[in-house]
């Protein structure tokens, strides 16, 4: 006790300074068990520019809630009229899944609640305006009179502007309850998985019934390389998936591939991504793997990659008869664990089957386009957030430009189409140059 007293500094000399973490600890993102299976609904107000007449009723009613008087400049929603184009835009908080205003606030006055609503705590707000600069939609609006920052809080779940809009140009949405593309995709993936893995064991690599045969295109390439002979039946069998790719892009990867289904399931339970070091993030790697597989097969005289192919392994090892019996079992969790680093890491960087389909997709008939004009003026970037292979350029969207989507990389999962609240993401034929809403806003 005496020793302690001697080592302790007098109270006046002790450092009692508190940092921001002591005053206002940053809240960790809470995830409930149900979030892994069904993502939390994303509440926001959807603006229909084609319906808005610019009457400003939303601004009026919003300002009465913010400052208890009709003062449109003090509203959390702003209608901007483009005199030349004859268009109205709204500046309105989208309550993003990962709000950029939140880390920008130096006093941590902005928080995203469990209900998904992003709020400003007036007690901590210093009205510095950094959030208005950080937000791609400029949604936190600085009141030119009082200098206060006003931001939509969805009227705590019952937005007044939506109720008062005479044209129904504002719709309150708690996210789509059921996304039909998502439903179809999961059903297709599940059925494909059951058929290829549990019922028709080994059928992905090669399957023949009567005069009809199907084969894995990568396996076929390796077969040709290893045997040194081109068997017409084998080549024509591989064409089935290639023709599907020419018609509909890499639909196989997004809708049929059983290993892709496993990866999507693993993604559900590994929400936190560690990321890849930048030197490993090259999408050309998979073409290198393909070249290696074909070259290796030629050199060694057998289909080298097929021995470790996760799709083939899954089909061969996890059937009802051979379930848990094969030593190949280990390859699946090993590759699936890459999901910890990034979504669909295997598909993005390593899969040689994806590489063959990617090359075939150069001849595809369709493309996915995101028209920035149809998109909100300052994009909500939800499409970029949901893309499992990360090919939608969020920065381009923030600049108000239509991003170019590399269809050789796109797995045609159509999550972007399903998620877009403005119907800006569309499928078009590749020769369609004039895309509605394409170009700069």
């Amino acid at each position, binding site marked *: 006790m005496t020793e302690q007293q001697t080592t302790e500094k007098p109270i006046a000399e002790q450092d009692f300074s508190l940092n921001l973490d002591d005053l206002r600890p940053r809240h960790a993102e809470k995830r409930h068990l149900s979030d892994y299976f069904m993502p939390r609904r994303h509440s926001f107000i959807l603006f229909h520019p084609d319906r808005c007449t610019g009457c400003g*009723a939303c601004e009026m009613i919003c300002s009465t809630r913010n400052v208890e008087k009709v003062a449109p400049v003090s509203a959390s929603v702003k209608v901007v009229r483009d005199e030349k184009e004859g268009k109205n835009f709204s500046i309105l908080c989208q309550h993003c899944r990962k709000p950029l205003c939140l880390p920008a606030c130096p006093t941590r006055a902005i928080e995203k609640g469990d209900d998904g609503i992003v709020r400003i705590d007036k007690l901590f707000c210093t009205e510095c305006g950094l959030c208005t600069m950080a937000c791609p939609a400029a949604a936190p609006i600085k009141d030119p009179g009082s200098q206060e920052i006003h931001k939509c809080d969805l009227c705590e779940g019952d937005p007044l502007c939506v109720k008062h809009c005479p044209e129904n140009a504002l719709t309150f949405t708690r996210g789509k309850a059921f996304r039909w593309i998502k439903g179809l995709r999961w059903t297709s993936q599940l059925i494909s998985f059951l058929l290829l893995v549990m019922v028709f064991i080994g059928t992905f690599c090669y399957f023949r019934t009567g005069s009809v045969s199907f084969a894995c295109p990568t396996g076929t390439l390796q077969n040709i390389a290893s045997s040194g002979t081109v068997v017409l039946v084998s080549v024509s069998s591989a064409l089935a998936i290639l023709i599907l790719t020419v018609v509909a892009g890499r639909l196989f990867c997004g809708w049929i591939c059983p290993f892709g289904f496993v990866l999507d399931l693993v993604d559900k339970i590994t929400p936190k991504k560690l990321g890849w070091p930048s030197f490993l993030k090259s999408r050309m790697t998979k073409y290198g793997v393909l070249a290696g597989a074909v070259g290796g097969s030629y050199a060694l005289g057998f289909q080298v990659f097929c021995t470790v192919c996760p799709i083939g392994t899954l089909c061969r090892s996890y059937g009802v008869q051979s379930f848990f019996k094969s030593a190949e079992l280990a390859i699946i969790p090993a590759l699936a664990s890459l999901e910890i680093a990034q979504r669909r890491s295997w598909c993005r960087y390593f899969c040689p089957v994806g590489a063959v389909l990617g090359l075939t997709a150069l001849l595809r008939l369709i493309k996915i386009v995101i028209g920035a004009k149809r998109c909100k003026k300052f994009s909500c970037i939800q499409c970029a957030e949901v893309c499992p292979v990360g090919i939608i350029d969020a920065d381009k969207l923030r600049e108000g430009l239509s991003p170019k989507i590399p269809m050789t990389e796109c797995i045609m999962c159509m999550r972007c189409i399903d998620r877009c609240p403005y119907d800006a993401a569309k499928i078009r034929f590749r020769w369609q140059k004039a895309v509605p809403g394409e170009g700069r806003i």
Partner: protein
Amino acid sequence: MNPFQPFYNMKIGVVDLSASSAEVIPLDQEQVSRYLGGAAMNSAILEGYQTDALVFGTGPLTGSFAPASSLMIASFASPIFKCLCHVPFMLRTGPDMKFSGVDYLVVKGTAPEQSILHVNHGKIRILPAGNLQHMPVPEAIRELKKTSPAFQSLIITGPAADRGVPYASVSIGQNGSLDKAGLASLMSVKNLKGIMLGGTDGLPFNRDNPHQGKELEKIISTDKNFKHRGFYSVLTKLEGGKDAGKFLKASRKKDMACYHCPSPCMTHVRYSWQDPRNKEMQNSEDGLLLLDHTGCAALAKKVGENILPVLRACLHYGLDPAGVAERLPQGRTVLEYLNAIDQIVSDNLSRTTDVSQRQCLFGGGVPPILTGDLWEKRVALAMVLGVCPVFLLRFPQITDSALLSFISASEDVLKTMQERLSSAISSLLSPL
């Protein structure tokens, strides 16, 4: 208690351009109780000043939860009609004037040099605007946005007014207005280029009767006019309007509404054309907001399918399309029309009008879509209360008591206000 208290700032701004001074004085409560506001109040205020003064005013409902509460009224002795005129200004001018901290603005005297007013937070600044002289309206607006304090609404005169052309018209932003009574000419005589309204304050309008708006919406939504909306719905009711509609309909882009208006009567049009005087400009796309029904109908009669480029030229110079139409021949090319407009701006010609007396009283631009006394009574009602006259003409079933109930739900107060409203309307229509 004064029922108008939350509806007004209770302030009048008085600008003496000769002395380059501006002051804000309290609004006379008795005068407000007697005349309610708008054009009736403008006339009463104008009596206290010289004949060359002009008054901009709002009604009690301007900016409130009443539908189409967008009105600002300019009252002045018209140099063209030679009588007292009340010109309505819509879009957001009325609410922005109130939200700038003054309810009425009196402008008297003549500025020694071209000036522009900036009103905000109940303060008025007289700013030099010599650099804007002879500048086309869109360019002048761009210049103001760059160099002047921020504003929400703007009324401005164009190069036509700077040159003293009698066909000049004031423009709300770059969209034109219903001024056909020579307000732009009067402003140019005073060396007043325009008025910028900051609109950054607000007013705690009475919300005792929040369901009143919904009740009115129900009444309106059952009306057949509610479905027929946009510029053409009004245009086709005017003489020659159907032909104009034919030329304009193909370019229709979007219907637009003024402040808090549930049934838009303006339309944004987009059209592509080639300026024959500018060979570098190939099939340029352009957009216009159509708000002047009578002007478009008159112009279409003369220029036919060339209406949009000709209208654009009018707005560019700050000209009244109806006035310009009087001087244009029929059946010419776009180039000839554009040259004729240039000629109108450069020549200082005298103007003759054949507008009826009742139209003159309200600036000559309110579309005559109702017949008989009903038209002037509805317009006068709108001009006193500060509600868009076109909206009240389109929906004649909206009664004065329905509008007054936005001010107070008390029956006694309503009865008194109705009496005063009738007397204010009578005094306003007395010149007729």
